[in-house]
């Protein structure tokens, strides 16, 4: 039980915060920490647990975001459907990418994932008739839970916290279930795993598809929260890198790692943005220089990430 103390602390703090904190900025930061934590956690399922590193996850995020936005703008149905539709489409896309994962290894798979996300970016940016093109879609705010039009940030914290728990528990499941063990074996040595009867190909595809679905749900909720979907952001390589950055800094292949990583990255980022927004906005790049350097150093010398401080393996 002691092993879960940090996780319990994290989720308890996140859950109780809305009861004690009133400041909109702080609550907003908390929502973002949780959203990016979920996205990083979702990425972690494919990247950390299945060993399928992708830099194209923004494809799934964007699909979810657009699904939610289009539900509101084009089809006039509840964005909760958008969450489901986004997840479904992303699962299909994830299956396609999983198929690619079985044909390419390492960096070449990474390049393919980037290509897929860029195809979607260009498609969304150019297909004026469907997606309003590169101007993006403003997501309409219709008050009510069913329409996910919620002004109270505290409720948002709890909604996203729900997703965060789902992502966290899914990762835990991967650590102790039969599938999880088999997946770990595939990650370590696919051929050895195959010789032991592990259905490596199928597991990889399933992991990527699950990862895709969760990422899309993040995207859908984020779109409703933020209120605007810009294809150049939502399908960007930057965003994909961001998911992986949080997961790696926090601890690749650990259940809590992505959330810790997001905690660190998001707080610094929002603080810097608040300080330097506007005239000095380019100075916001400073923290990314730090993170880029941290990434280079960590990935070589401290691959356990922040979680490595809690548990010496």
């Amino acid at each position, binding site marked *: 039980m002691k092993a879960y103390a940090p996780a319990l602390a994290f989720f308890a703090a996140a859950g109780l915060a809305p009861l004690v904190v009133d400041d909109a900025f702080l609550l907003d930061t908390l929502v973002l920490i949780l959203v990016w934590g979920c996205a990083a956690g979702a990425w972690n399922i494919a990247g950390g647990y299945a060993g399928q590193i992708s830099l194209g996850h923004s494809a799934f995020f964007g699909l979810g975001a657009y699904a939610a936005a289009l539900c509101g703008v084009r089809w006039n149905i509840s964005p909760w459907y958008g969450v489901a539709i986004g997840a479904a489409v992303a699962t299909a896309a994830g299956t396609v990418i999983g198929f690619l994962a079985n*044909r390419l290894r390492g*960096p*070449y798979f*990474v390049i393919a994932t980037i290509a*897929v996300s860029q195809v979607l970016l260009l498609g969304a940016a150019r297909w004026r008739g469907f997606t309003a093109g590169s101007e993006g879609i403003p997501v309409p705010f219709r008050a009510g839970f069913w329409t996910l039009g919620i002004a109270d940030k505290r409720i948002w914290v709890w909604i996203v916290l729900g997703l965060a728990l789902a992502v966290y528990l899914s990762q835990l499941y991967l650590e102790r279930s039969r599938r999880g063990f088999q997946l770990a074996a595939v990650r370590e040595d696919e051929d050895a795993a195959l010789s032991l009867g592990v259905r490596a190909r199928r597991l990889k595809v399933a992991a990527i598809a699950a990862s895709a679905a969760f990422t899309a749900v993040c995207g859908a909720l984020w779109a409703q929260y933020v209120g605007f979907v810009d294809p150049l952001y939502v399908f960007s390589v930057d965003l994909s*890198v961001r998911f992986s950055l949080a997961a790696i800094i926090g601890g690749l292949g650990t259940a809590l790692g992505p959330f810790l990583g997001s905690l660190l990255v998001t707080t610094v980022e929002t603080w810097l943005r608040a300080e330097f927004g506007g005239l000095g906005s*380019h100075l916001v790049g400073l923290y990314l220089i730090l993170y880029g350097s941290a990434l280079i150093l960590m990935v070589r010398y401290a691959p356990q990430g922040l979680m490595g401080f809690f548990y010496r393996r």
Partner: protein
Amino acid sequence: MRVVNFAHGEFLMLGMYAAFWAFTLLHADPYLTLVIAVPLFLAVGWASYALIMRPVVHTSHNVQVFTTVGLSIVLQNLALVLWTADARFVRTSYYASVISFGGAVLNLAQAVAFVLAVAATAALFAFMRFSYTGKLMRATAQDRSAAMLMGIDTGRIYALTWSVGIACVGAAGVLLAPIYPVYPTAGLQFVLIAYIAVVLGGLGDMAGALVAALIIATVEVVGSYTIGTSWKEVLYLLLFIAILVVRPAGLFGQRGSETLGV
């Protein structure tokens, strides 16, 4: 070297900025800057190898991927912090000049860039094929352990290979500066095409990459005539993905090489 450099585009971007600042501060024509850029970027390459790549040359692919991704982030944001996100332009006096060639009209700067690029590729190819050092590089690429046993200093070969690569892409940046806007994230669009050309052509095959690049360019142009300019990139990206599905080793690569990873 069997390493994919995800910061490749950022070195291109640095080349573009080098041309820009040389032009703005020293009024140096980009083609003049080119002469200095090559040794400059060789040095930059050597430094970046020693500082960043050497520790990870023998680690897993994932570590290498994220090392270069980290480098990419650092360089992009360094440019952002130092020079802001404003797009810069290298407006040479001949920026809009064209030359007529047969029935076609070509932008002068683009034409020159093309000629120099082909010449550089040919030179590089000849170097790899016929020079002693080139042979050393190819031997090391094929079997590092055997190369070491043959007395080849693989560390230096890697440093050289890396530096030559950086020098090439830096020079490419200088050549592109008169044609395209210069901003911190300019690298991505170009580097994606480069990756695609390399994978499409077949990993490790230089001639293949050139052929693939020409194919991509053709698809792009033909696409923009038939379907419209806004969809041309989608076209070659989809082509890329389609070819990966059908023949992951690329057009000229050895079958099965893609599943060995690198």
